[in-house]
């Protein structure tokens, strides 16, 4: 398993990057920054190209769809009404899988795994939990700045080593 979590902040800047097992090509720090920025843009575009399905014109969509987040008033709905449209969540290639998790505040976690790795959601949740505990609760951490928290590094490494 090769895991590779990169939390990116709300503006697409890379704030943490760590490689746990070799498997992907090694890039320079600058390339990782470029990659994070590119992904940030692509993520926004993938949300905007969501197909819009036209609603039947004579029905009154406002009254008939209470509680859905789909913009029913403008005459179309998303394929999965009730679920807000998100950007890219899971990318599959021949050599690796990329899972993107966006927190409510807009921080994105990118996890690169081997195609055979299962339970990526569990890993992602644990990483988020560790991030909340050791980064966000660290009084010396400045928001949107690169993460340099030793306790986070230590716990993340220890937890992932325990899994493999």
């Amino acid at each position: 398993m090769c895991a590779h979590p990169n939390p990116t902040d709300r503006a697409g800047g890379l704030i943490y990057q760590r490689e746990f097992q070799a498997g992907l090509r090694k890039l320079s720090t600058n390339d990782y920054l470029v990659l994070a920025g590119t992904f940030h843009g692509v993520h926004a575009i993938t949300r905007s190209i969501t197909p819009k399905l036209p609603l039947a014109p004579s029905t009154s969509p406002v009254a008939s769809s209470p509680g859905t987040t789909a913009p029913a008033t403008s005459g179309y709905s998303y394929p999965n009404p009730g679920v807000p449209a998100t950007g890219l969540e899971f990318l599959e290639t021949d050599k690796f899988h990329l899972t993107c998790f966006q927190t409510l505040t807009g921080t994105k976690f990118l996890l690169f795994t081997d195609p055979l790795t299962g339970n990526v959601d569990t890993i992602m949740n644990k990483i988020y939990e560790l991030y909340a505990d050791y980064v966000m609760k660290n009084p010396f951490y400045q928001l949107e700045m690169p993460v340099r928290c030793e306790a986070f590094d230590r716990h993340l490494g220890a937890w992932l080593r325990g899994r493999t």
Partner: protein
Amino acid sequence: MPVYSFYIFDRHAECIYKRRWLPRPTSIAGKPSRATDAQAGSTGLGQTVKAGDDDAKLVFGTVFSLRNMVRKLGGEEDNFVSFTTSQYKLHYYETPTNIKFVMLTDLKSPSMRIALQQIYINLFVEYVVKNPLSPVEHPGGVGVNNELFEESLEQFVTRVLA
């Protein structure tokens, strides 16, 4: 298993073919009237929508950036197969000649790599590449928009994939 749209991009980053399939308008209300049913039929499955070029450009940008990203991380011979969001799944296939086939489907559909390959081998090569009247390049979709190709693509998507 609805297919939402299908795009072909040539090696000059131009969209040479684009087609959208609109599923029947989803009426969430209890009883759809006769009139809406008739209308749903006429604007229903298999209609080519002449919308702005914008979404094709956005799709190309996404696919192009992701492909480059994947190649950077996974090596030159790596290629991305598909990605999903909470609403749709995008499938990607690139031929050795850099023609890119992109298909947007719903989330439940299995991998379309074989299907896109089939479209390339059995439809695109047969009806576009082997057509003696078709130009080598297809600026603006010339040569791709022939009747046989469109008809068989229509049949492939509505019968084989549906």
